[in-house]
């Protein structure tokens, strides 16, 4: 007869970030990363705006030259 195994004490659910974050960042590094992400996001938006503006400029010049 085997003794019923004792149920381990329930441990708190690990936070989602503990599964995804393999490197622990210091608060300064976290701040730097957030700042960099913001700059990248801003750069992407700026690039999209430039593409849109360029498209409009080309379309309007083509339209005015009768193409």
């Amino acid at each position: 007869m085997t003794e019923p195994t004792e149920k381990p004490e329930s441990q708190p659910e690990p936070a989602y970030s503990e599964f995804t974050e393999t490197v622990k960042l210091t608060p300064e590094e976290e701040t730097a990363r957030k700042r960099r992400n913001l700059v990248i996001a801003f750069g992407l938006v700026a690039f999209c705006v430039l593409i849109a503006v360029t498209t409009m400029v080309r379309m309007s010049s083509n339209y005015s030259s009768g193409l």
Partner: protein
Amino acid sequence: MTDFSADPAKGDAVHAASPQASSTLADWRDYLALMKPRVMTLVVFTGLAGLVAAPGSINPIAAIIAILCIAVGAGAAGAFNMAFDSDIDAVMKRTRRRPVPTGRVPQSEAYVFAGVMSLASVTLMWMATGYVAAGLLAFSIFFYCVIYTMWLKRSTPQNIVIGGAAGAFPPMIGWAAVTGSISLDSILLFLIIFMWTPPHSWALALYKSGDYSAAGVPMMPVAKGAKSTRKQILIYTALYLAVTAGPVLTGLGGVIYTGAVVLGGMLFAILALRVFRSRAGDGNHAEDELYAVRAGDKAARDLFAYSIAHLSLLFAALLVEHGAGAHWALPGMGG
């Protein structure tokens, strides 16, 4: 584009960095420093001059985007150069505070940054102005990254003579953005910067030869000696000054430009002669700061500093003449 015009330790290290700093602490200033902002200034200025001096018209928004693309393309090439040359930069006093050798920006990130910026600048240039300007921009980035940085810089004392072509493209790109073509005048603007690069770079190399020697870069003073370099500076100065007269003959440069060529050129010749007669570079020194110099090397430092002013003066003259309607061609010159 070239980093021949003052790729400065101080200017490049816009954000003071400590060698122990972690890469994750890099901020926008480090990425700006990667793009060599001081070099970019001259590139943008000459590109703008080419754009303004070109015959024809361009939509102002397209013109702004074209200049932005030239700036970003030059910055991308600078970032690639810093990534590839991080081993050299770490050894040289002048460049050891750059973002890659200090570890603030990992080398792989610098490569990705350079690649993304190159692609973005060429794509936008194509959309805004057409394939000629975009093709020239792409070729100049390729030339600087592959031909100069990866190949010539470490293999021959002629590195900056041939590699100087990369930095000479911006006015041609600006010109092509307006006209969609290449002409004799735009080739002359290219040649002016191409011939300017050797005396400019070798003047710097003379008073920083200790740095280049330590890093094993075969710059002319290291490979052929200071005396030979001083002589070649004089020869290239003569060629450069001859080429600066080209736009006068074609009519691109008017009275103001001619004045800049004559007066500015005389001072350039005097400073080059002073370098020739000096013993600049004989000590194989290298101070930390870009303009810091030992007494014997002062003539070389003066020529280096003045060469930037002289090139700026010539292109400023073209800008004023064609941008502000102050172009009066000399009688019998040009068409």
